């Protein structure tokens, strides 16, 4: 083993060290003596490593996928059959309108779990270890979001599958649907920075949950997800119009129906960039100063 350059970070240093004893102090001394420092990894590499951690956590705690599988199925079924007859005459008819919106609603609501994960890590004591590592500072945060992007994709696919079974027939075809999901996941990635901020700011998991309800209910319900805003009072329409979720839904709906609504897509991307700019900056300030 002494000369296997392929598997050792610094073969020269390794070669001088004898094979450690089975265990105990001698073995440990040899391990310590061989503790040569490799080159510092880049921002992308460490972010991907944190993403890998998020995947490992999904592997060990698969229950956490409940909120990206059962919850979206429930939402889709509930709203389709609750409003379908009353609003559009038939559930299948309504589904063509509702499905992209309910997909946005479920995924955007799922983003708050990012805040819960951050908060749990602080509470459990793994967070401060990451903060003492000589790595690109935002990497742990980006890692959470990469893991969450996987969850968002999964929720979208589950809802799409339920929709297809119930009779959703997107005119945009495979490409339109994939583009819609991609836009949704990208926006949710940006939106999640709000939750990394709250995860760092608030003291307990419960308060993160509490705040998330205050934010998510108005953002998702006061939008064009369930109904067209035409019949709403003027002041409410004003809110709905500036709500980034409205633009996201309009863009996703368009893509799935085969229309590229340029200004809605642009608004969604711009609001995503603003969200990252504002909440990403605040998150990193809190992360560095905590």
């Amino acid at each position, binding site marked *: 083993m002494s000369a296997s350059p*392929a*598997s*050792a*970070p610094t073969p020269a240093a390794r070669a001088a060290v004898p094979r*450690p004893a*089975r*265990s*105990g*102090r001698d*073995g*440990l*001394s*040899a*391990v*310590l*003596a*061989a*503790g*040569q*420092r*490799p*080159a*510092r*990894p880049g921002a992308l*590499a*460490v972010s991907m*490593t*944190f993403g*890998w*951690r998020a995947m*490992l*956590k999904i592997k*060990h*705690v698969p229950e956490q996928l409940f909120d990206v599988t059962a919850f979206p199925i429930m939402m889709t079924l509930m709203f389709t059959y609750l409003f379908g007859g009353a609003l559009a005459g038939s559930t299948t008819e309504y589904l063509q309108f509702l499905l992209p919106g309910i997909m946005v609603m479920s995924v955007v609501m799922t983003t708050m779990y990012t805040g819960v994960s951050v908060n749990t*890590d*602080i*509470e*459990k*004591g*793994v967070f*401060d*270890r*990451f*903060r*003492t*590592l*000589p*790595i690109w500072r935002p*990497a742990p945060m980006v890692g959470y979001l990469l893991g969450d992007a996987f969850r968002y994709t999964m929720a979208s696919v589950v809802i799409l599958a339920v929709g297809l079974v119930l009779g959703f027939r997107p005119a945009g075809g495979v490409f339109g649907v994939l583009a819609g999901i991609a836009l949704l996941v990208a926006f949710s990635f940006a939106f999640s920075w709000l939750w990394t901020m709250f995860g760092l700011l608030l*003291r*307990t998991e419960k308060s993160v949950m509490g705040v998330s309800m205050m934010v998510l209910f108005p953002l998702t319900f006061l939008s064009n997800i369930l109904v067209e805003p035409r019949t709403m009072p003027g002041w409410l329409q004003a809110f709905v119009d500036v709500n980034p979720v409205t633009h996201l839904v309009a863009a996703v709906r368009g893509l799935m129906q085969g229309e590229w609504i340029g200004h809605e897509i642009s608004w969604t991307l711009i609001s995503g960039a603003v969200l990252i700019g504002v909440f990403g900056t605040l998150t990193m300030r809190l992360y560095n*100063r*905590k």
Partner: protein
Amino acid sequence: MRTEAARSTSSREPDGPAIETRGLVKVFGDNRAVDGIDLRVPAGTLYGVLGPNGAGKTTAVKMLATLLRPDGGEARVFGHDVVREADAVRTRVSLTGQYASVDEDLTGTENLVLLARLLGHSKPAARKRAGLLLESFGLTDAAGRQVKQYSGGMRRRIDIAASILNTPDLLFLDEPTTGLDPRSRNQVWDIVRAVVAQGTTVLLTTQYLDEADQLAGRIAVIDHGRVIAEGTPGQLKSSVGAGSVHLRLRDAGQREEARRVLSQTLAAQVQPESDPVALTARVQGGGTERGAAEQAALALAELSRSGITVDHFSLGQPSLDEVFLALTDRPAHDEQPENGRAGHGSPLNTPSQKGRSRNGQAAEEATP
């Protein structure tokens, strides 16, 4: 001292002090958690920071490890300012504490591989290093288990393993043995000694005098965010008394007489305990354990000459409580947790009674 030997075999040349702080201050609300600490920790040594819960130990360590910003004063680690050159500090230090732990949901191997990858090891190198560390820490059998299923001792070992994936120049160990059983504690001590022997500077905080005595070359005693005493364990003990003798008499009626005899022969304060037949006295012994043992033996002989029957006798090291009593004329306090976030402190646990014979050499028992 064991660490004397370790120091001389240090493989790294000291490049100035590992830690130097001047007037370090941290305030939480109206609580001055750290209230002007000056420390100088020579490179390559093990430095003990001794104090009760709430004394400011953890807060000081967090500032030195770049986790908290000082509100006043300055701190340098290997010459790098902990605020302005935090990144340079991070490349050279590692931290283990209850708040800087590993991921409970992941297995031992996954945790170590994760951290090794973050430090820049290739995937095969990370696996190899994780395997070697687990092996030398006696955790190979538990490598594939989630850390949440580990016992307290295993947990503490994996925490330390996670801190030495790249052998650090300075390792902070924040109360590494609090709450451990004696066997696990000895395992941790062995690991700490091996780390110091490799030339790593270690700053260890503890609530136990005997731990600091066993491991540290120098000790700072901290109370209310200030250093109230500093020196080698020998110096500290000679100011406090090298030992503490605990007696149980057959007859409670003889306690006053015993107390008089002891204060004469030991020239020290004797304290009656709540048990009506028990007494505790500090033994100066010129600051050495041997001196303390000799003095205690004389005191026993004197008691027997005065016709006082002693049922049980033991000689141990002074507890943290007794150290504090000697240094501050009041017992160690146990106040609020050190900072705002959910309290993770454990209750002050002085080893004076139940832990007296934890390390074989410090305790001698006899039943005359």
